[in-house]
């Protein structure tokens, strides 16, 4: 029997610190028991927009050294169909559901949130902010800390559920962006997400993805995610923080907890193995046991960065 690993994200209690990352959890009817719900703390839905989106042209995935390059283009049925059909199925998996909301404008974020936060079975909202800001014509809402905070704050004010602002791992001002979002009222932060990337098929002289540009996930990016989580945990101590990027084993999840995460999101590894989140949770339990630590929270930020061994 795996030991229970409850974590408390500032009032949001999860039975495991391992959370399935957005875009990697399906629509609730695919993998069934292979996901091993008992070991998983929560799952984050794919990111939902106001209107349906058909998403990017294929190919949408390509392999890179220790990484997965992808571009789904936010394919989703729109918030209305999501709340009606997909969300109830996600809830029935037995894994607590966090809904990822996104949009091209502040209004879209708020409108999606308004439909989702009252839906039954949702435990929290994640605002996916690393998206083109169509209103201000910037490559990402995260290009300016103030703007990320403005949008995240609006989502937080709309929602009766805890809101996590999802920030990308690579921003020159990541600490600032985190502080601004917290000041704007979010409950917590998610620091994770693919890095902007692309692939080229040199044999054919073509981009590897139909959309040309895509995102890089998987083990390749773990060192970048660790750094981002470490920086944000120092910038906003005491704020619930989910970290993710390239985690595939229990000890790797422990690395993120040591760096300051309160919970760990697992994306790509879930695609390779739907049982990975539960297996990683068991690995965390084994790690805690071996190091005489009683709960994931006791590991949090415990990295010994002082001088000398």
């Amino acid at each position, binding site marked *: 029997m795996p030991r229970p690993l409850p974590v408390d994200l500032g009032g949001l209690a999860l039975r495991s610190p391992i959370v399935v990352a957005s*875009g*990697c*959890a*399906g*629509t609730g*009817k*695919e*993998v*069934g028991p*292979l996901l091993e719900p008992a070991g998983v703390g929560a799952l984050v839905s*794919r990111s939902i927009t106001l209107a349906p989106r*058909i*998403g*990017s*042209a*294929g*190919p*949408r*995935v*390509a*392999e890179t*050294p*220790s*990484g*997965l390059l*992808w571009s*789904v283009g936010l*394919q989703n049925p729109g918030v209305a169909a999501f709340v009606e059909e997909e969300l109830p199925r996600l809830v029935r998996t037995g894994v607590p559901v966090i809904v990822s909301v996104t949009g091209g404008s502040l209004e879209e974020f708020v409108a999606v949130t308004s439909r989702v936060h009252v839906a039954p079975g949702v435990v929290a909202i994640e605002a996916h902010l690393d998206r083109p800001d169509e209103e201000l014509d910037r490559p990402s809402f995260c290009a300016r800390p103030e703007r990320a905070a403005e949008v995240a704050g609006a989502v937080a004010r709309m929602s009766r559920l805890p809101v996590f602002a999802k920030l990308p791992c690579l921003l020159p001002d990541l600490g600032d962006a985190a502080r601004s979002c917290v000041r704007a009222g979010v409950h917590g932060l998610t620091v994770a997400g693919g890095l902007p990337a692309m692939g080229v098929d040199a*044999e*054919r*002289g073509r981009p590897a993805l*139909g959309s040309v540009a895509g995102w890089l996930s*998987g*083990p390749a990016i773990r060192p970048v995610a660790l750094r981002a989580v470490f920086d944000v945990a120092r910038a906003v101590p005491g704020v619930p923080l989910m970290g993710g990027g390239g985690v595939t084993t229990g000890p790797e999840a422990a690395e993120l907890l040591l760096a300051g995460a309160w919970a760990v999101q697992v994306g*790509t590894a*879930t*695609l*390779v*193995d*739907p*049982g990975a989140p539960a297996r990683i949770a068991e690995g965390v339990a084994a790690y805690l046991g071996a190091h005489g630590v009683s709960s994931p929270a006791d590991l949090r930020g415990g990295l010994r960065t002082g001088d000398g061994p």
Partner: protein
Amino acid sequence: MKRARAEVLSVRRLGAYHAITLVAPEIAERARPGQFISVAVPPGRAYLLRRPFWVHAASRRGGWAGTFEFAFDVRGPGTAWLARRPSHTSLDVIGPLGRAFAYPRRLRTCLLVGEGHGAAALQFLAEELRARGRRVDMLIGGATLEEVFKPIEAKRLSTNLAIVTRDGSLGDRGRVIDVLEERAARWGTEVVYAAGPRDVLRGVARFCRERRIPAQVALEERMGCGTGLCFGCAVPVARTDGTGFDHLRACVEGPVFNAARIVWDRWGGTEDAPAAPLSAG
């Protein structure tokens, strides 16, 4: 969909292909033609994703009960690794995955068109169609004699058989598409099943649309998960209301699709004609 640590019973060469037989009753019992399985690659490599393969045969009864087989050509590191698996080691397999071919209710004369490893999926289908009293004709091809998948087996399974190779080393010289029209007419084809590279499937679809012959294609699109989680395997499929298309997932809503509904101009596929020469700017 089940997951198994499946024992490798054997790895055999079949011309240009390798075939692996695995012991995995929970998968073998469920697998139907047109479905696929996905195999995990070893840890510690620079590549991560499971590799998908058509189920080529599955034994539910008899001495081999509980085993199934897939066949592949060595393309890159994943298939190279598989080709070297010793017997009695095990593979981490998930399957069966995806929607199988649908059997015809009334129509009786089936033509199965395949090129390359696609023929592996079709031979499983041929067995099942025959078991259901349908007539099976086959049209299979490959670049060379070695790349024609199990021609003797094809002979056994079909009432009429045509083989084509690009170099003429076996059967007629050409590609399956070149002889499709003539054979379908000669054999009185009522329904077509196809598996193979993009251009073959597209050619089959065009022909069947023109002749109003129902056609199902089993297609290959790059996959992130193979289990429906990631939306990485999008195939553009026309909406029934005529308002455009949606991206369906090859791994759960496919890999078998009604050929008439695929928006071929928008589907990149994973494979096509030889690389065009590069030019600057």
